[in-house]
Each structure stands twice: as C-alpha cells, then as structure tokens.
C-alpha cells in the first residue's frame, strides 16, 4: 500500500500544475455521448495527442455491488461487493507531446464463485480448474499504466506505453484457492501525417502473463469436493482430478499485438483502425516437474470505422465494429512418469471456439445553450461456435441485440449534471448443443444450463447519472449507475456502482 501511494503521489504531481481555465468545459464535454471513448478507440498510443476534452486529472473512490438470481455463469460468482480507488491523469505537454498515467486498487469479494477456482476466467477458459462447491472469493488487485507520445519534426510521431496488473484471489474455507497473478504489457508506436488532417499510426505490443494457483483442503473431515482440470464442453483431464498432488498449477502466457489507426487531428472526420492480438498460455503442473499439459492460443482481430461531426447545435456520429476471436486449445499426451520424458510430449489440438461479432452504434446530439440531448441507437450480432474434436462436443449460440440510449446533459453555473438511460433487447435463437457421452452427469447438466441461458432472450436496462460541482480549479463529482438484466422465466441480475471523486 505504501508503494502504491508513493506511485500515486508521483503521478499526480505534474497534474497539479495543469491549467485550470477549461475545467468546467472539459467536465461537461466528457459527459456527452459524442465524446465517449468508444467512438474513438485508442488503438495506438499516439491517439492521446488528439484527445482535447479528456485532459486533466481524476481521483475517485468507488463501490461496486452486484447480485444475480439463478446465475448461470457462476464462474465469476453470483454477486459482488468491491471497493475501488482510481486515479488517472492525461496532460498535454505543450503542442507536441502528451503523457497519461493511471493507478487503480480494488478490494472486495466475489460471491458464490462456482465451477471455477482460477483467476482471469475470461482469459483462460476452457483450461481452468474447477470444483463443485465453490464459495466467496476474496479479490485484491493493483494496476498501473502509463503512456507517452510526442512528435519528431513536422510529420512524424512516436509513442511508448506500459501497464502492469497484480491480482490476488483467495478463499479461507475449503476448497481454498490462492491465485497470484502478474500481467505486464508494453507497447511502442509510430505515426505520420497523411494529407492535411489525418495521422496514420501503427503500434506493436508485447504481453507477459503469469498466474500461480494453489488449491488447498484443510478440513479435518476431509475434502468436500475434488478439483477438476477442465478442458471445455463438459470434458476434463480425468487423470489429474483430486485434492492433493495436482492442485498446484502455473499459467505462463505471452503474446504480441499489432494495430493501425487512422484518425483526424480534431473531432470531426473519419477514423478507422485494425488490430490483431495473439496470446498463448501454457498450463503447467507446478509441483509435478512443471509438466505442461494444456496450451491455449487466443487470436483476436478487430476493426472499426467511425465518423464524427460536431456542429454548433447538431452533432452526429457512428461507429461500425467488427471482431473475430479464435481460441484453439491443445492438450498434451502426458507421460505416465512425470519426472522424465516431458521434452517429447505430443500435443493434440482438440478445442476450438470461433466468435465473430459485429455492431453499429450511432449518436445524434442536440445542444441548446446549457442543455444537450442525445440518442444512441445500437444494433449488434454475435456468435460463439465451440467444438471439441474426437469427443464430438459442440455448442453454438447466437445473439442479435438492438436498443437505444437516451441522455441529457445540463450545465447550470457551477453545476454539471447528466443522466443516461439504456434499453437493450437480445434475441437469442435456438443454437446447437452436443456434449460428449463420456461427460460426468453433473458436468453434463451444468453445460445444458449454460446452453439454456444462451438461448433465452435477454432484456437489459441501464441508468447512469453524473453530478459535478465546480469549486474553481477543482470539481467534485458523483456518478451512480444501475444495470438490470432479465432472461427466461426467472433469470434476474442487478449491478450497481457509485463513484465519488474530484477532477482538476
């Protein structure tokens, strides 16, 4: 904690000298949908040179609460109670350079995590360790990031970035996972003026990931479950099921990313970008000669095109996003004796999941004096087609989402307030499911539940509010948020969040 506060103080020091004259304007502009970061994805670090309304420093404390009834994706729990502290600062250094930095700290509990003992479930599935009992999971996470971009001569730009995340999750009743994760990313970018009003930039990045996982059973009455080494679609690595010898795992991951971004100097104009990420994680038996036994290769390709026009009274914009994720899982033919022969392990690529998605979001914004109204229609489609070879396990699901957000931003003297209402409906037609006949009955029924969830139509509603009071060079804000989801006959979920902080 002492290190964390020191880094925070160093990071905030330059921000305190930042010019304050446009604070109220920045605070108000940032609430308007047209300014949202999602309309200008920052594929490269050089993009921070062109973010006029996002400059400044924010320090905030927040609380997250969530509760699900009949939760299906219990790998992340059916509830959350999490405190959070965040600070970030973006500063323009003259006309030619900019720097951004941020820190965050989270501490809380994920409630009733089930069928998952591993941290970073979304990153590592299907190769996680799981049990049938679960329970509350304590979470503590630190994260830091920094970016710098500058110009060289009249045409060229360059940027550098780095981020680090440390996560600790644990439980103090059986089964007792203790997972320690570190996640480091670095990036470098270069850009050049194209034409008179655009910059084309590219970025290369590298990521290094490590998670050490240990699950212990300490009850004198014996273990209340076994740990299963899951391999996707109700399958598991049966040999390592148990409570002792094979519950210490290590995940080692590394990967690279490439991205290109075309963006205008100002707000108005066309932006476009493409990115590619490749990330491979190998799971090892940490206390069994570090034998590797599963390998997951995740590849992500994304592209977007957007345009914005900000007028005096009427502004509009749209963004089209396309994404494709491919997960390939390979499993080792592990020798009988783990102390020898591990250099000659054949690998079988058995798991595959293809996940394409597309979305289109628009924004129409009217401004009249200190009031701004906006509408944001949204349409999207997504699909997930998972396959497990030889076992003939399959699960294919689809989702088609449509909806709209409406928002209002008011600036009255020292007060800035906004409210945003969102409604989304997802039509999820019947897909396909076929599970291996060899699956254990309780795993079988679990996956049928998951399939049922992804084929039930989903209704989502959200309410976000923001109130800020300007005190000269400082503004104090509060941002409450409530999101509701309903599916099937009795699937219900609610999530709430509140942030209180200062901007300067």
């Amino acid at each position, binding site marked *: 904690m002492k290190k964390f506060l020191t880094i925070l103080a160093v990071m905030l020091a330059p921000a305190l000298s930042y010019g304050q004259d446009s604070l109220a304007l920045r605070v108000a502009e940032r609430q308007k949908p047209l300014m949202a970061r999602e309309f200008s994805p920052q594929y490269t670090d050089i993009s921070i040179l062109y973010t006029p309304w996002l400059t400044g420093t924010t320090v905030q404390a927040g609380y997250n609460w969530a509760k699900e009834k009949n939760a299906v994706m219990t790998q992340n729990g059916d509830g959350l109670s999490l405190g959070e502290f965040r600070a970030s600062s973006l500063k323009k250094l003259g006309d030619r350079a900019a720097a951004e930095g941020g820190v965050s700290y989270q501490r809380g509990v994920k409630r009733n995590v089930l069928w998952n003992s591993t941290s970073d479930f979304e990153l590592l599935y299907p190769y996680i360790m799981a049990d049938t009992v679960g329970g509350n999971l304590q979470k503590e996470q630190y994260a830091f990031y920094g970016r710098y971009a500058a110009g060289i001569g009249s045409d060229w730009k360059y940027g550098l970035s780095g981020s680090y995340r440390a996560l600790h999750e644990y439980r103090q009743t059986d089964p007792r996972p203790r997972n320690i994760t570190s996640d480091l990313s670095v990036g470098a970018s270069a850009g050049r003026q194209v034409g008179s009003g655009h910059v084309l930039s*590219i970025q290369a990045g590298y990521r290094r990931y490590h998670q050490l996982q240990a699950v212990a059973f300490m009850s004198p009455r014996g273990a209340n479950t076994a740990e299963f080494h899951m391999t996707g679609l109700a399958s598991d690595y049966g040999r390592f099921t148990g409570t002792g010898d094979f519950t210490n795992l290590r995940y080692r991951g590394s990967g690279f990313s*490439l991205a290109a971004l075309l963006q205008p100097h100002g707000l108005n104009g066309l932006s476009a970008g493409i990115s*590619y990420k490749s990330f491979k994680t190998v799971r090892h038996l940490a206390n069994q000669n570090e034998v590797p036994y599963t390998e997951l290769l995740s590849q992500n390709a994304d592209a977007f095109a957007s345009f914005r026009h900000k007028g005096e009274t009427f502004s509009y914009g749209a963004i089209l996003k396309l994404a*494709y994720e491919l997960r390939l899982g390979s499993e080792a033919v592990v020798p009988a004796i783990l102390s020898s022969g591990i250099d000659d392990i054949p690998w079988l690529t058995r798991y595959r999941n293809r996940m394409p998605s597309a979305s289109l979001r628009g924004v129409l914004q009217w401004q009249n004096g200190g009031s701004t109204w906006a509408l944001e229609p949204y349409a999207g489609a997504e699909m997930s087609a998972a396959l497990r070879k030889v076992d003939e396990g399959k699960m294919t699901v689809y989702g088609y989402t449509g909806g709209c957000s409406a928002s209002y931003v008011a600036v009255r003297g020292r007060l800035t307030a906004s409210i945003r209402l969102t409604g989304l409906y997802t039509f999820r037609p019947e897909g396909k499911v076929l599970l291996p006949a060899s699956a254990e009955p309780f795993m079988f029924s679990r996956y049928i539940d998951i399939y049922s969830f992804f084929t039930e139509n989903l209704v989502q509603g959200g309410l976000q509010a923001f109130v800020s009071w300007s005190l000269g060079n400082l503004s104090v804000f509060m941002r409450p948020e409530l999101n509701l989801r309903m599916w099937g006959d009795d699937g219900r979920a609610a999530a709430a969040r509140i942030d209180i902080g200062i901007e300067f």
Partner: protein
Amino acid sequence: MRRLFIILVFALLATGCEKNSGQNLECLVTLNAVVQGQSSAPVSIVADRTLSGTMFRNINTLDNYNIPAFSNGTAQLQVLKGLYMITFDADAVFADGTEHRVRAAQYNSPEKSVRLVDDNCTVTLYLTVLQ
C-alpha cells in the same frame, strides 16, 4: 509505413488460419494376439467385459474403449492418440476347437502403458493361458 500496414493485414488474415486444423487426432490400432505356448493364433478371442479389470483406457483422459473381438488373432479399433492401458481376460477359441481362458496383462498399469501417438499403430499382445 506501407510495408508495416501490409504486415498487419497479413497478421489479421492469419487469424483465419487455424493451427493444426488438419491434425489427425486418432490412431488406427491393430492388435495382434499371440498366445504363449500355442503355435497358431486363436480363431476368435472375445474379451470378458463383465470384469472391472478389463480395459482399454487412455491414462490421461481416463476414457475407456470397448475391446473388439479378435478374428484370427487380429482386431482393429480407432482411438484418440495417447497412452493406453490394455488389460483383459478373454475366451479364446482355437482352430482345433479347443477353448481357453487367456489374459492380456502386458500393459496393465499407467507405468507400463503403450504409446499410441501415430496415425497407425500395431500392438502385439502376448496372452497367457489361464486354464
């Protein structure tokens, strides 16, 4: 800049290419039975599936396969590539009409498992006559 852009486009296209998409995950196993003390192979061998010790088991996934009936000392089955325990008691019928109880115990523990990781594998099982 243009070259780098082209590299990125190719990297994106690479996402569509699946590593090992054509990999053959299965092994066609030919089992040849040799009964110790007998000059010729049995006409038929049928494993006794009622015994819990009868197994053709992948030692990693613990998936079990049915042991097929042998004809003239040979049988074939297709399995996931891997390491296997093969152990069974069976009734063997010989060309002269005699019938014997035989046992395959050569690969009867994980440490003695047989490695079946090629597209085609041949395994010779040396069977012991029990009675």
